[in-house]
């Protein structure tokens, strides 16, 4: 009993540590503010983009980066661990975004403290997405390979078009005036939490089982493993985390349009995984960061040349990586995927 508590505390301590580090980094990046007001802005999530070391532009890129890392790492659980090539991840993000935005705007009083709103948003976004993830997973996981890809691609678009036809969330006009309370602190913390969750799953017997299913489903069955059950569980976890990312996204932009969640976004998340290296958590992080920063970085070039070369260079970079590192930046042919030291 003593020992169980001891271990539980360890994990809890870790989570508090993540909280503290996220806060510290946010604090430093905000230019070491000492006033009560500035500190509470970081902690209690007032929109905070004007002062500090970062320009509002860089600040918003960092937030986007964090959200993309969440999406990428959550997808890694499906395609990297279980070998499930799903193509509808943007759909889960959309459900998280729209459900949390609706909940915050229509279901709870606007005077609710921001911290509570944030927690509610993330949990509602994650849960709604997980419920849909369960249904989609359960109904499509009997399919394999390309068929699964096709079906999930379809589901992703169905979700998007369904949302497009709900007038209460703005329909084609988009959803506006969503309370903005996502800040660097919350994004950093949630992405770290997601990385921790996925890492723990990978290390556990569940992760081992997922890799076994990916490599040989028939042999896995002969080990007493029910592949469908494990895959559905992975689907639920993955969609929960993508939903959390969507929720944070909704409350950072303050505006939602279904155009954000087309299959193009799903492919982008897949590209993050592939470029980073399938099966590697570090790879998913690097891929997510790279595909956020690259297109933005080339914006500077556009000012210089006067024409929009962004997409060309972006595409070129990705092509070059795929030619010279076909297994991705952290991937490998024989399954010895690379991981950062702190993720080993």
């Amino acid at each position, binding site marked *: 009993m003593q020992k169980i508590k001891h*271990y539980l505390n360890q994990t809890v301590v870790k989570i508090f540590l993540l909280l503290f580090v996220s806060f510290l980094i946010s604090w430093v990046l905000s230019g070491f503010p000492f006033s009560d007001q500035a500190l509470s802005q970081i902690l209690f999530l007032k929109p905070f983009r004007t002062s500090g070391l970062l320009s509002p532009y860089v600040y918003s890129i960092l937030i986007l980066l964090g959200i993309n890392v969440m999406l990428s790492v959550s997808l890694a659980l499906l395609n990297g661990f279980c070998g499930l090539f799903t193509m509808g991840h943007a759909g889960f993000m959309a459900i998280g975004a729209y459900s949390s935005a609706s909940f915050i705007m229509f279901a709870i009083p606007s005077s609710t403290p921001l911290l509570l709103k944030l927690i509610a948003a993330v949990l509602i976004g994650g849960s709604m997405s997980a419920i849909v993830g369960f249904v989609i997973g359960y109904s499509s996981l009997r399919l394999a390979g390309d068929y699964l890809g096709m079906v999930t691609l379809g589901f992703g678009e169905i979700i998007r078009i369904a949302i497009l036809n709900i007038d209460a969330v703005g329909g084609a006009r988009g959803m506006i005036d969503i309370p903005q309370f996502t800040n660097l602190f919350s994004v950093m913390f949630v992405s770290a939490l997601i990385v921790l969750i996925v890492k723990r799953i990978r290390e556990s017997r569940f992760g*081992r089982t997922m890799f076994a299913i990916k490599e040989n489903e028939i042999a*896995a069955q002969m080990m007493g493993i029910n592949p469908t059950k494990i895959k559905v569980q992975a689907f639920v976890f993955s969609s929960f985390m993508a939903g959390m990312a969507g929720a944070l996204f909704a409350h950072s932009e303050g505006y939602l349009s279904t155009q954000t969640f087309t299959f193009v976004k799903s492919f982008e998340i897949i590209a993050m995984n592939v470029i980073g290296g399938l099966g590697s958590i570090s790879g998913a992080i690097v891929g997510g960061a790279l595909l956020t920063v690259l297109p933005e970085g080339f914006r500077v070039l556009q000012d210089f040349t006067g024409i929009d070369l962004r997409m060309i260079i972006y595409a070129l970079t990705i092509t070059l990586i795929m030619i010279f590192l076909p297994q991705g930046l952290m991937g490998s042919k024989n*399954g010895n995927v690379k991981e950062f030291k702190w993720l080993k």
Partner: protein
Amino acid sequence: MAQMTSTITTTTSNQPLLKLDNMSLYFGGVRANHQVTFSMGEGLLYGLIGPNGAGKSTIFNVITGLYTPTSGDVFFQGESIKGRPSYELAKRGIGRTFQNIRLFKELTVLENVMTSFFHQTPGGYGSALFRTDFYSANEKIVREKSLELLELMGLIDNAEEKAQSLPYGKQRKLEMARALGLNPTLLLLDEPAAGLNPSETKELTNLIAKIQKTKKISVLLIEHDMKLVMEICEKIFVLDYGTLIAEGGAAEIQSNPRVIEAYLGVED
């Protein structure tokens, strides 16, 4: 921890461990198995022989639930297992190896064996995510049991290697170790000595016999190496063109005219 120690269900003595009852399996026009009837008792070593394409592997695939018989039935511990999913049968105690090796290539040798303990281990995602003491203790037990099996199969020095880096012979042994992790009551070995040289074959033969005796499990062994089969199997089933043409002890089989006919020209 009660779940982790095998509970070998003792069947009543008059009830066979495995029984194929008029079992047929057709692939369209191909009669892979045709009205096969035989039964196996507990704690014995059986051989299953026959020329190439006789339907031996197909019988394994039927027993392990990969194929559902076209007609007839299969009983395990007295219960029909027709149409049951493979993972359920594995949980009930049917372990197997494959003719064309199916390892989890990118997992380590140790991890390969540990997968077979998955369903025998209590605790859900919560305990894994919080890495509770309960979880760690169970992982440790699984690890130790898996290492024991690697030791038994002579793979202990390869524990941390990727399965795919093992030489062929050791890959076959790893498949056996993995199947033994299930604590099976019935172990199906599909050509475990294929591709081994004579001395390796000899060693493996002894190992199979030893494991079968010490663990008191029933083994059904497919093998083309007649010497091996005759040496260690207490009873032999002979299959030809999907049909069971003979069963009995080594001497009986060797002098059976139908068996000699089936093997004419198929020198081994």
